[in-house]
């Protein structure tokens, strides 16, 4: 199966491209794809830095299984340290 990978901002400049196409085995996870991408673009981020990703415009965890045709975006830091958290409050019922 094939997925599209999109690079933005710092990652786009470091990868030297705005998008790439990757062929994966069925059942491959987002984490596996990100490792593959980092292998192809070793300068993308320092080894200890987690690369945050979105699948089809939603933030996703490394364990998510990808589907053929998915669009994966690598999200350089926007703020605050790693993956964006949930809202900083408990929702009310109204």
């Amino acid at each position, binding site marked *: 199966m094939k997925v599209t990978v*999109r690079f*933005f*901002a*710092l990652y*786009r*400049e470091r990868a030297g491209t705005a998008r790439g196409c990757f062929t994966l085995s069925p059942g491959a996870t987002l984490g596996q794809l990100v490792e593959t991408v980092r292998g192809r673009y070793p300068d993308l*981020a*320092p080894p*200890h*830095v987690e690369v945050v990703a*979105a699948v089809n*415009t*939603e*933030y996703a965890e490394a364990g998510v299984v990808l589907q053929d045709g998915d669009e994966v*975006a690598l*999200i*350089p*830091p*926007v*703020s*605050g*340290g*790693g993956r*964006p*958290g949930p*809202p900083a*409050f408990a*929702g*009310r019922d*109204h």
Partner: protein
Amino acid sequence: MIEITRQAIDPQPVTASVRRDSNGAVVTFLGVTRRHSMGKAVLYLEYEAYEPMALKELAKIGREVGSRWGLQDVAIVHRVGRLEIEDVSLVVAVASPHRREAFEACQYVVDRIKETVPIWKKEVFEDGAVWVGCQSHEPSGAGARSAEDRPVPASQASGD
């Protein structure tokens, strides 16, 4: 009104969009490009967005305001592309019956935009450019882990 635009933003219709006769308070935030950042003169800025995702994340923030404060009247317009000094990069307007909620919710929206929305800012100086928040040119070594690639608000120099 939730928009990402490449045009100059006129704040007036953004504010107007949240006004209703039950709202006694309207708070509007403008994020503006500053002339100096990190002690250096900024030539211009480039904002880049992953637009469909950014729009979804902005809409989520609007819903968060609904669940926290029960307010529906939230408008967000973010500009992308090249911005000059003193250009407005972001307008957030929140209206509510009473003023405290409008201030709280507007500040929340701005904070949250800088946490979750995939919009990035590059500051261009005489002697180079930097994606704000990505100190990728800092030396590695002891303590570098916390600094290198450390995420910082995308709009740090424009209203952080």
